[in-house]
């Protein structure tokens, strides 16, 4: 089942997702130890290739790599030849020549993770490409839902907000569907892709109607520039119609969990008080992110034997 890359949800499929979710349970245990570190990837080298600014995703990956004792090298925008105009190909070939087992890449252009194997033998992990995919976000979201609700299959998941520009939404639609969830997308017509018939999802422009029986309400970040680009008349109007106001949050069924991939625009897509509610699991998503990314790195770079031995030796 083990593939070479995690570029998109389709590199994993349902079996791959399930394998990573069960590996994640193991790393949850590792992370709860007094010294949450195993030598599972000792001697392995991972390069961070971040062409877009990222704090949370990168820190999450770095933490995951450290807990697995992997070495890493950093080729991020602000600190490397990238901003001296070096081409993607040259950068990738340079990293490869230094010796690297995996490249974690984020890029503003769709498809970059799929181009890299032309220039490197390393495993590719997509940390977000354009508005296309962000598979590790979906994996951590699946893990969070599974931990909170016991299962993903049969659950009604409402994804609300700027679907059109969202790589999180694109990966989540594929992952949630693979895991058997029922998906409703809620957004104004301007913030939906022109053709949604390619996904087996329900489309709605009515947030209140859609969330009445939702199991998961997944709010997407609303970029502040969208107002200038005339996708919505004003952020105020957007918040009224599509934001998770405190009122709406209080009307949610008791079991419904509230998720957000961060960073949040408090007061726009999510009211300032909402993340503090008991059913908001935004910080769980963040801590699960480290665990799931440990599982992803181990899934691609580790071997089962190391894990069980190391697990024993650390107890």
């Amino acid at each position: 089942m083990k593939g070479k890359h995690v570029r998109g949800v389709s590199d994993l499929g349902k079996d791959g997702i399930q394998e990573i979710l069960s590996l994640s349970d193991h790393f949850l245990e590792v992370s709860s130890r007094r010294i949450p570190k195993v030598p599972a990837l000792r001697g392995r080298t991972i390069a961070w290739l971040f062409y877009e600014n990222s704090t949370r995703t990168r820190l999450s990956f770095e933490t995951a790599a450290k807990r697995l004792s992997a070495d890493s090298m950093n080729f991020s925008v602000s600190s490397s030849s990238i901003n001296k105009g070096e081409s993607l190909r040259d950068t990738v070939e340079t990293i490869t020549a230094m010796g690297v087992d995996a490249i974690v890449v984020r890029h503003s252009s769709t498809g970059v993770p799929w181009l890299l194997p032309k220039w490197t033998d390393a495993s590719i992990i997509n940390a977000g490409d354009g508005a296309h995919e962000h598979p590790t976000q979906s994996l951590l979201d699946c893990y969070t839902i599974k931990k909170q609700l016991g299962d993903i299959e049969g659950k009604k998941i409402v994804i609300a907000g700027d679907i059109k520009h969202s790589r999180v939404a694109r990966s989540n639609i594929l992952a949630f569907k693979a895991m058997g969830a029922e998906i409703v997308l809620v957004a104004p017509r301007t913030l939906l892709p022109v053709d949604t018939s390619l996904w087996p999802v329900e489309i709605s422009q009515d947030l209140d109607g859609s969330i009445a029986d939702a199991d998961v309400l997944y709010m997407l970040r609303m970029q502040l520039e969208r107002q200038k680009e005339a996708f919505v008349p004003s952020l105020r109007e957007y918040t009224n119609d599509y934001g998770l106001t405190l009122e709406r949050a209080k009307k949610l069924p008791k079991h419904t969990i509230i998720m957000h991939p961060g960073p949040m625009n408090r007061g726009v897509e999510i009211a300032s008080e909402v993340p503090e509610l008991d059913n908001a699991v935004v910080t769980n998503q963040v801590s699960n992110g480290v665990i799931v990314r440990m599982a992803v790195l181990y899934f691609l770079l580790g071997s089962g034997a190391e894990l069980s031995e190391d697990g024993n030796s650390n107890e």
Partner: protein
Amino acid sequence: MSKIVLKGGVIVDKTGERHADIGIGDDGRITEIGEGLSAQKTIDVTGQIVSSGFVDLNAHFSQPGNEKAETFETGTRSAVKGGFTAVLAMPDTGNINDDADTARSILRLGETALCHVEIAGAITMGNQGEQIAPLSEMAALGVRHFADPLIAGESDLIIRRAMEYSQRLGVTLHFGCSGGGLSPEGQMNEGTTSSRLGISGIPKENEEIEVFRLCSLAKMTGARVHIQQIANPQSVKLIAEAQAEGAKVTCEVSPHHFALTEVLVESFEARYKVLPPLMTQENVNEMQKLLHEGKVDAIATGHRPCENHLKEQPFQEAPFGTIGFETALGASITYLNSPLSAILNLLSWRPAEIAGLEDTHGGEIVAGRPGNLTVFDPQKTWVVNGTEMLSKSSSSVFEGIQMKGLVSHTLVDGELVVIDGEIQNNESKR
């Protein structure tokens, strides 16, 4: 006695099809047509088609200004290998050709070409759409075409003025319709694939709207207008209507728009990034039908070479463009289920008229005409390999595709510039 004889071929021209040899004289003109001709040099073209040379209404050479991408010399090596004997050079990929000095220098550069080069001036200064370029000064140098290959944001008014003002010069105005008011940042066709990939799309209605207003203004002003690289079949219908109402509007289609689909973008390879973008299968089918029915005037390559390293960039960062000369014939034969005469009408006869070159190109193959001829084997199959092409760029949207139909010899003004697919390195003759 003739200097060269093309022996044993099938001549296909406007008058039909016949088996005959063609003799070319020292003055570069056809001297005789008939059986059993002989000459100092005989080229055996048995089983092949001899036609008038192809004429490309839409080619970019990037010179002067961006010689890294292409020059007239490299670009026309590729053109003649593809069977073209005349090309119309667009004003926009090197220094913008918007004044007499630039036009003069480009005309001089055209002399390094291996085939006839017509040059197009810009319609507005810097192609900015604000101030009309000195059309009259350029026309005085012999410029008979003006083009705005990426019409975007020009007001109706400035287009009207350019159409009105240029009338007395007897020139043709060429417009591309893919610059988009509806999607200024569009990277590919808007639809299922763009939705799935999260790439901003260009709706096909964008072209329709541009074509509609160009047709209206052409009708209003009586200007001679040529619309470039139609990708949306609906636009062809709008143009046909305008033609029926008396507008002097013609149009062209590029091979990839009747051959390839947007699904190729799923590879994320920037070689599939072209403008207008690759369309859906449904569109491609409809476009083939319209070409077959004779609703389109010309096939033009839109040859727009990009430096190879730029095409290795991520899709959203790479420039638009593909090379096109050497695949035009093969794509036309492979993807259009049309008789050869219909294909030659689109590649040679009709574009020669639109370019104003009907005295020297296209048309009938008769004694006395200049020897601008192409010989090709319509049955020959081959696989496209960009690195083997003669353009400086090897980024072809047709990479790896098997085609039927390959040019073997090309004669420009009676000189054999291509023999058996090889460029003849005698001094550029023009």
